[in-house]
């Protein structure tokens, strides 16, 4: 017999612990690998523009997932070897050589880790394919491509290597720094938390709520008061709600100083928790953050998708496009012929002119972090349509005075508009027209993606129109096409793009009025910088072009498909964060419960000797284990939901739109699912600890 055989026997006997450890490592490798495969797939790379915020965000999320998986693996390793510490300690106490023991354990771990790496990598493919396939059921787009790229494989192997290295370091620390006396006397070690003041729990909740609101509002208040962008240190305010979470958890674990009516009822469970205090509180804080982080990621897609879904569905005209009157878009009968070719029919059509003028306003001038506002009579471009066209399009009757304008927005006024304009200008004659805001008119179809339409009287429209060349005029077209198809939409889009000249391929951030004003002032216009010029080189099929082209048409079926694809990508990116965060939280809670149960076996034995019934002991056990699950889950779920409520409420100037309420309802549903799974984990923990404590 040799030491390897001894390890084999120990492995066989503790197979459940080995399997749990290996599952954790496989899970980490599989999640990181699947995420890497996804991130480097052609579709995701196309959806996320090079150098764009969304790509940075996606890589940021990937980094978070990697760090999360690494932390998770290291936690699993530390826990696994902490359990094995007694075995290793006994071998050392009996005269085992530390270096030889280290080599033996490393060899064993290396074999396990390589197996985990292989299985994790292999599992990543079906995992990715599964999620991709599930989404393909809803999104039937030929552009959805999944391909294995070399960087993703290298990253997976790299992450597995780091997991392996970190495990070696943990092992080294355990074996070479192990104090044998700690192992021998381990059963009797406690880490008690001192008594807390009476209202600690209440203070914690107040800090969470008040700190959350303060840290959310602080940047805005700072900008209003100091006319300066908020400094990074202002983010430290988020430590206030974090401190609140800590205090609340601490209170839940050890309770306050007060002697309440229920004191005797909770005496045993509270005392037990108190003696495991520090580690339990730390674990619960981590669980809270993980559940909160998981929820945050899970809420992103439903909240953004509901807003998009309702706005698109509300549009009655399925084809809308605009073009400069200097271009010939669709020759006579060209569109009709195309539509016919694809078995569709144009049922209704409406075209009307749009004038491009300059509007006045307060322009933000930045000087380093400081900023101030300056009035400009010609600040940006405004798109104007006339009263009679609106009346014909919407079949309504209006009475607009010559010096008034209306903003056209959606039913819930989510689409932003400018109510502060006082002057329109003709950019060719520089003639000025004083105006005042008369109110909003609601029409979903007249809400354009990249510009806002304003309505003026026919008289004012004619005055501006008569002195304006075609350079400053556009035509806005609406079509209702029956039997529409994605193929037709892409073909129409292709033909539409063909009608434009290279100089028309500019991104929506480019404003003609601002460019002219900057040029006249001898300044360089920011959107004319070389990095923005490359936009014209993009393919019209690229998601970045379709997202930001100034003349991007709205073809309902194409827009739905394209946006769904984009959301699918975001969904896939976020789903991994959700999985990693929540699974880690549940596993940490489960192992913490098992540790508490194992450490307190003697308490339950003593209770049994004192004549406590199984039901009584079960109740005491449930009471203490429920704290580990209940408190972090409640705090995590409630705080993140409140945060989203605050964000959505603040976004629209202190109100909720229908789509936001729908989104929040979906979030509550997600929370219910998370809560239900957490309850299942809690029941599993109670069962496991009951078995360990021989309750049955």
């Amino acid at each position, binding site marked *: *017999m*040799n*030491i390897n*055989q*001894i390890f084999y*026997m*120990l*492995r*066989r*006997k*503790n197979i459940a612990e080995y399997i749990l450890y290996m599952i954790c490592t496989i899970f980490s490798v599989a999640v990181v690998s699947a995420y890497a495969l996804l991130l480097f797939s052609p579709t995701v790379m196309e959806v996320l523009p090079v150098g764009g915020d969304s790509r940075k965000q996606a890589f940021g999320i990937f980094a978070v997932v990697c760090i999360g998986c690494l932390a998770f693996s290291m936690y699993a390793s530390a826990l696994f070897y902490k359990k094995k510490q007694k*075995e290793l300690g*006994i*071998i*050392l*106490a*009996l*005269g*085992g*050589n*530390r*270096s*030889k023991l280290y080599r033996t354990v490393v060899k064993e771990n290396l074999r396990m880790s390589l197996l985990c790496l292989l299985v994790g990598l292999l599992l990543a493919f079906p995992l990715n394919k599964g999620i991709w396939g599930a989404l393909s059921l809803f999104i039937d787009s030929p552009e959805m491509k999944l391909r294995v790229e070399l960087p993703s494989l290298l990253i997976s192997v790299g992450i597995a290597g780091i997991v392996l290295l970190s495990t070696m370091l943990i092992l080294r620390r355990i074996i070479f720094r192990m104090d*044998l*006396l700690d192992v*021998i006397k381990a*059963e009797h070690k406690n880490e008690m938390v001192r008594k807390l003041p009476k209202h600690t729990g209440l203070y914690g909740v107040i800090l969470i709520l008040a700190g959350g609101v303060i840290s959310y509002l602080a940047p805005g208040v700072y900008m209003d008061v100091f006319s300066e962008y908020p400094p990074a240190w202002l983010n430290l305010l988020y430590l206030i709600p974090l401190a609140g979470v800590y205090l609340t958890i601490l209170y839940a674990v050890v309770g306050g100083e007060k002697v309440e009516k229920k004191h005797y009822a909770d005496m045993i469970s509270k005392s037990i928790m108190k003696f495991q205090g520090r580690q339990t509180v730390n674990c619960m804080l981590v669980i809270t953050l993980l559940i909160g982080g998981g929820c945050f990621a899970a809420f992103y897609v439903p909240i953004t998708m509901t807003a998009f879904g309702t706005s698109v569905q509300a549009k009655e005209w399925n084809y809308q496009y605009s073009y400069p009157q200097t271009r010939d878009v669709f020759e006579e009968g060209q569109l009709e012929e195309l539509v016919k070719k694809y078995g569709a029919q144009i049922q209704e059509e409406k075209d009307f002119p749009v004038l491009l003028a300059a509007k006045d306003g307060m322009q933000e001038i930045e000087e380093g972090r400081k900023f101030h506002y300056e009035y400009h009579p010609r600040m940006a471009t405004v798109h104007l349509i006339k009263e009679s066209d609106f009346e014909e399009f919407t079949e309504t009757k209006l009475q607009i005075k010559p010096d008034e304008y209306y903003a056209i927005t959606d039913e819930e006024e989510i689409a932003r508009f400018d109510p502060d304009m006082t002057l329109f200008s003709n950019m060719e004659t520089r003639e000025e027209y004083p105006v005042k805001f008369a109110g909003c008119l609601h029409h979903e179809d007249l809400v354009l993606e990249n510009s806002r339409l304003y309505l003026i009287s026919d008289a004012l429209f004619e005055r501006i129109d008569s002195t304006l060349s075609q350079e400053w005029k556009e035509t806005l077209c609406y079509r209702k096409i029956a039997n529409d198809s994605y193929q037709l939409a892409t073909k129409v889009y292709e033909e539409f793009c063909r009608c434009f000249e290279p100089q028309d391929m500019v991104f929506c951030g480019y404003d003609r009025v601002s460019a002219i004003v900057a040029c006249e002032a001898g300044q360089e216009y920011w959107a004319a910088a070389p990095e923005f010029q490359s936009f014209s080189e993009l393919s019209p099929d690229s998601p970045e072009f379709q997202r930001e082209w100034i003349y991007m048409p709205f073809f309902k079926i194409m827009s739905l498909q394209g946006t769904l694809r984009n959301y699918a990508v975001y969904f896939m990116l976020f789903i991994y964060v959700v999985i990693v965060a929540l699974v880690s939280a549940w596993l940490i809670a489960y192992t913490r419960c098992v540790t508490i149960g194992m450490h307190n076996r003697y308490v339950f034995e003593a209770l049994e000797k004192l004549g406590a019934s199984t039901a009584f002991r079960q109740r005491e056990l449930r009471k203490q284990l429920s704290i580990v699950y209940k408190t972090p889950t409640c705090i995590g779920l409630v705080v993140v939901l409140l945060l989203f409520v605050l964000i959505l409420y603040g976004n629209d100037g202190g109100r909720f739109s229908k789509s936001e309420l729908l989104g929040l309802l979906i979030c509550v549903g997600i929370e219910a699912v998370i809560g239900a799974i957490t309850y299942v984990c809690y029941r599993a923990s109670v069962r496991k600890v009951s078995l360990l404590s021989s309750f049955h």
Partner: protein
Amino acid sequence: MLKVEELRKSYLVGKKSYEVLKGISLEVKKGEFVAVMGPSGSGKSTLLNCISCYIGYEAGTITLDGHKIDTLGQEQLAAMRNRQMGFVFQDFMLLDGLTVKNNIVLPAVISEEKELIEAAEQKAKKLCETFGISHIMDKYPAEISGGEKQRVAVARALMNDPLILLADEPTGNLDSKSGRSVIDAFVMAKEKLHTTIFMVTHDSFAASFSDRAILLQDGMVFREMENPGDRTTFQDELLAGIGSMNR
């Protein structure tokens, strides 16, 4: 066999240093069964931990079979713990994943010496017979009683024929019947295998089986008492000795 001279050991609690062993000197002869007794905080466990090389000490020397242990490196210390010392702990410290037989052969396996390993199985059987645990050889620690566990620990401690068996409160976690069976195992080891035993205990009954008892108080040797030959008398004397110590 074992010689402790002027041993001093302090613990740092916060910024304060507490001297636990204040220059202890003692000697254990080959084949002798020595019990160390004393009230809590007298330094008996610290003394045992110093001899076992689990903790270091500030001054003094410990010599085992003529070799000073404080001059040994980590690897030599490990080898000495494995070959020349046998340990019996209060909490048994058996590996739950190994059967009784495999727990007993563990020190031989750790030694990596071919002869010891080859003879280990036979030796384990013999030790089990000696201590009356042959019937549980294939069982796991979770399936046997506390007394049996401690007898398995004694058998394991004797696997490599150590020069000395060091026991820390071996009956501390046991009821009187199981405690008696463990002490019987110690006596048997001394008589049949001529084992030298150094046992730290609170239990005057267990100590009354020893040849000699060393009473510690406040980190110093208070008194040494020889067994007069009659166990009951010796136990009474020990109780009286401890009583006088508290006055």
